[in-house]
């Protein structure tokens, strides 16, 4: 195993220090080295089609911008008046709250549902399947109306033994307020979709990962939480980001509950009052775009976090050779320096 190139400084290789530099090509003493090669300064292929399409598209964009500026029906001054209106900004806040709260609940439920779906326990598998079947199979609008009407169906909620004595009861409308109904309705519906995304993510992780962790004696919960889920997140984050942006706009359906403070309802109300629907639609669209852009930034960082070690594959971790050598020396003080260490010098 020992190569001629290394034997000059490590004449006697320790039996317990396997050669590891054999994977890197050793310089050939006899090979001629070209120090000044003539670079192939080739003429690149021309792409006239790109220039033509650029001109066409830029022209169309210019036309659109021109009409937006010159067409008085856009009423940009009204957009300006209402973009920071208290009702609009509050509506944006409620919309954001609905999105974040319902997605948070949905993610927790989805992890649970996806894990239950792969469980050895058939009851868990079936209940998870049934949940997804039901909440994915009925319109979110219907579900929102239903949660809004829960107080009609069950005027009070009580806890007790089935067919036995009651322990306490509460009026439903005091618990299921419009905001609670809206969040619940959105979250339960979304959890069914996310459960399938999470299931796909968990399935995408190689079975060997579970086996390796099992062979180390890890518990099922630890294997899921520390080994499988972090790897699955790489697959789960992009479609979940998609769902979050979808949810941002689905919140406009909470009118069905009825919950009447969100961005769409607020801008609609202003539009009806001022008889100016177009500028207020633009106001709503601008705010939705702003939030979407912020969510996309967040998604970018999440993807980078869960992609570490895989997506950043060759961006080699800068190992400070001196520090690593010191660490190794601490770890193996019985070894004479120089027998093992320099071979693994960072490339």
């Amino acid at each position, binding site marked *: 195993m020992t190569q001629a190139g290394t034997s000059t400084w490590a004449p006697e290789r320790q039996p317990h220090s396997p*050669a590891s530099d054999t994977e890197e090509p050793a310089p050939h003493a006899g090979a001629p080295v070209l120090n000044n090669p003539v670079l192939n300064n080739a003429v690149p292929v021309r792409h006239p089609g790109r220039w033509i399409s650029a001109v066409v598209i830029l022209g169309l964009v210019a036309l659109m911008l021109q009409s937006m500026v010159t067409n008085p029906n856009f009423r940009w001054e009204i957009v300006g008046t209402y973009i920071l209106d208290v009702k609009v900004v509050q509506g944006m806040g409620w919309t954001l709250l609905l999105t974040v709260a319902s997605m948070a609940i949905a993610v927790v439920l989805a992890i649970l549902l996806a894990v239950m779906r792969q469980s050895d326990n058939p009851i868990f598998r079936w209940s998870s399947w049934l949940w997804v079947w039901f909440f994915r199979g009925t319109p979110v609008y219907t579900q929102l109306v239903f949660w809004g009407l829960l107080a009609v169906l069950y005027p009070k909620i009580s806890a007790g033994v089935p067919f036995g004595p009651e322990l306490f009861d509460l009026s439903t409308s005091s618990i299921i307020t419009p905001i609670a109904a809206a969040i619940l309705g959105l979250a339960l519906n979304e959890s069914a979709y996310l459960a399938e995304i999470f299931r796909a993510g968990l399935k995408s992780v190689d079975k060997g990962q579970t086996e*390796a962790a*099992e062979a180390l004696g890890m518990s099922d919960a630890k294997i899921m939480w520390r080994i499988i889920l972090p790897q699955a997140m790489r697959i789960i984050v992009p479609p979940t980001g998609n769902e979050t942006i979808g949810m941002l706009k689905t919140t406009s359906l909470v009118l069905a509950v009825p919950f009447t403070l969100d961005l769409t309802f607020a801008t609609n109300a202003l539009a009806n009052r001022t008889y100016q629907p177009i500028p207020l639609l633009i106001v709503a669209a601008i705010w939705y775009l702003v939030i979407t852009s912020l969510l996309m930034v967040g998604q970018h960082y999440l993807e980078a976090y869960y992609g*570490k070690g895989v997506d950043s594959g060759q961006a080699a971790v800068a190992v400070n050779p001196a520090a690593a050598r010191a660490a*190794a020396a601490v*770890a193996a003080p019985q070894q004479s320096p120089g027998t093992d260490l320099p071979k693994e010098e960072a490339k």
Partner: protein
Amino acid sequence: MTMIAEKPLVRIEGLHKYYGQHHVLRGIDLTVKQGEVSVVIGPSGSGKSTMLRCINLLETISAGRISVDGQLIGYREVNGRLHDLKKKEIAAQRREIGMVFQRFNLFPHKTALQNVMEAPTQVKRKGEDFARTQALELLDRVGLAQRANHYPAQLSGGQQQRVAIARALAMEPGLMLFDEPTSALDPELVGDVLNVMKDLAKSGMTMIVVTHEIGFAREVGDTLTFMDGGVVVESGDPREIIANPQHDRTKEFLSRVL
């Protein structure tokens, strides 16, 4: 080779394995003594990997018994009847058995160091500092101290497999199972992994090695077992079997791989 005790560490008796109707293992008997290096060879589909995976219950045992260090694997015997062990109890048995896979199966989202530290910190609940020192020692032992902060994707196959060996050793197992550890490696990387295994054998570790490396079997093995069609065809001193196989199937197999 000098440290082998008479005491058997692993005892496999009448092991059968079915996948549905498919009868993969047809009554395997194998004993591995403390400190012994037991090499298992055989053609693909002979059941050698399945047998290995039964020892730490990555496969269920259809019939027969396996005991490690006197402890029955996977079951508890009460009044002559076998009862399945709970997952927790199975995990406890697996902690005593290290395993190295053909495809390495390192955790790709963790660095080499984190891979080696994972089980000591999470399973044995050792402190971070202790686990880090131990992990660096082990990485140094497999010649990879300088690669501690690399992710698996930044390591060659041979380096990954050596990290995988260090990861298994971090649990301080009494038995190491190797499932074709060099079969997925480029030929020039095989030697480094075999050297690490050789050193491990010299240190007195009990090892069961499923491999196609006949040279390793001859040089390091204490016993050689040839399997074919789910049965043990021949078993004994590696040098004798390789030089002078008794069965036609062994002869045929060896003539093809040598």
